């Protein structure tokens, strides 16, 4: 039992603040645009790994208001390409240590992740992923209906559904996490080390002079900086556009919804590519579920009825016993989708302006490794090998990453 809790229980004074509220200065060494898990992780690692603390993290709303607060909190590394697997595996390892490192329980539940295959083409892709994973040292294997039934007894494994389950990619280290806690944990630790977090501070423009970043214009005034990071997943093109840079992405809403709380019955994360649905049960007992991105580009965060209808239909195909379970709330986040379903990280043609974008439907699970590698880049000027495949210039070099095959539903 935590000493802190006991102390707090018997104390009369107010508990300590998680992050300070300080005035916004007019110059910093580094400005990070976007106070989500990526931006805050980067700030944390800048301070922790590189001793750079003259950093301001700016968010136009409250921290974690973007993708970090809207995702369905799935963490895994069972990707298709070797470079993808390596990257996300590093992230999973950091997640495993995160609660201890940040002294904040992010509730990472490595309960196992199942990606169901409903056709032989799908089985082929799952096997491909399993093999690539194994060769990178990541625990994944193909399993068959008898083992699927043991892991997930409520699944309909009969011949009855239109898309019978033939096999599944089983990834034991995958699971779910308390996504807001990741944001708060990083925010506190970054703040503790001197990083300034400024909420309700919207960036309205970027100052570029002679091909070099000068600073950001915000709703609270101009903030000068020699290094600026664009960590605004969903609005990456908007911010990059302020520096005159076009990115290869299109922004789509990604919807999700949650049911009323139920006693625990689903103990793995279940994903179906053919049925475009993924679902898990949170520690509070709610089913958290989502599907693929909306069919047309939009920046709107309103949900749709079609989404609820389709996802309900697909959930009931997988779990026919859930017809009386009720949806409590729906929402949406924004996903910027690049052509090769892989992020766009690193330097840009504008010197000192770094991007962390193109995060599609796979951004939250990469937060720790993303923060760490980008901090290294910002601090040293050298792009770490792990993220070199995700550079912006890869499009002009015709070196796209091959993740598209894995991402019919990118969860």
């Amino acid at each position, binding site marked *: 039992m935590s000493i802190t809790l006991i102390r707090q229980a018997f104390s009369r004074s107010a508990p300590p603040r998680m992050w300070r509220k300080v005035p916004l200065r007019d110059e910093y060494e580094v400005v990070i645009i976007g106070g989500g898990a990526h931006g805050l992780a980067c700030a944390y690692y800048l301070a922790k790994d590189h001793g750079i603390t003259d950093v301001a993290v700016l968010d136009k709303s409250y921290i974690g208001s973007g993708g970090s607060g809207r995702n369905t909190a799935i963490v895994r590394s069972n990707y298709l390409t070797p470079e993808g697997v390596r990257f996300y595996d590093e992230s999973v390892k950091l997640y495993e240590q995160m609660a201890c490192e940040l002294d904040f329980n992010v509730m990472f539940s490595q309960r196992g992740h199942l990606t169901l295959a409903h056709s032989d083409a799908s089985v082929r892709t799952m096997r491909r992923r399993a093999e690539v994973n194994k060769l990178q040292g990541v625990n994944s294997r193909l399993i068959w209906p008898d083992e699927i039934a043991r892991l997930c007894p409520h699944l309909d494994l009969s011949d009855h559904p239109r898309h019978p389950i033939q096999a599944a990619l089983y990834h034991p280290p995958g699971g779910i996490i308390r996504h807001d806690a990741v944001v708060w944990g990083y925010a506190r630790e970054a703040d503790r080390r001197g990083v300034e977090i400024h909420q309700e501070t919207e960036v309205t423009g970027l100052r570029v002079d002679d091909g070099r970043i000068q600073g950001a214009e915000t709703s609270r005034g101009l903030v000068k900086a020699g290094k600026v990071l664009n960590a605004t997943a969903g*609005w990456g*093109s*908007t911010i990059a*556009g302020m520096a005159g840079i*076009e*990115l*290869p*992405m*299109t*922004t789509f809403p990604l919807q999700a919804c949650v049911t009323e709380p139920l006693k625990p019955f689903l103990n793995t994360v279940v994903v179906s590519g053919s049925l475009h649905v993924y679902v898990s049960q949170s520690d509070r007992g709610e089913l958290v579920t989502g599907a693929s991105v909306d*069919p*047309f*580009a*939009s*920046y*709107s965060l309103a949900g*749709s*009825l*079609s989404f609820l209808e389709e996802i309900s239909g697909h959930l009931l195909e997988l779990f026919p016993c859930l017809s009386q379970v009720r949806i409590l709330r729906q929402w949406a986040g924004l996903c*910027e989708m*690049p*052509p090769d379903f892989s992020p766009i990280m690193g330097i840009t043609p504008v010197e000192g302006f770094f991007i962390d974008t193109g995060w599609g439907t796979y951004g939250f699970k990469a937060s720790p490794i993303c923060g760490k590698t980008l901090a290294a880049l910002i601090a040293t000027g050298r792009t770490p090998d792990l993220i070199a495949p995700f550079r912006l210039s890869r*499009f*002009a*070099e*015709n070196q796209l990453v091959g993740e598209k095959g894995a991402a019919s539903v990118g969860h």
Partner: protein
Amino acid sequence: MLILDCPNCGKRNASEFRYGGEVHPRPPAAQQLSEAEWAHYLYMRPNQQGVQSEWWYHRAGCGLWFLAERHTYTGQVTRTWLPENPKSDD
């Protein structure tokens, strides 16, 4: 659900249509473009919050492709129209 005004069929539910992406004309003299310019055509997009011109296909209806001006945040569609007649082959 959004209503789209198909220039041929009139107002229909958005579920009848397929989104075709931002208007992005194919460069006429592709062969003369540099690698960077060609990659720019293939991949880069404005992707801004605001009014954009885009393509829609009436999948469950007349099968025509048409253009629309829509605000990507408010969702308001200000107009829809058919593309110009196909040009001659050259």
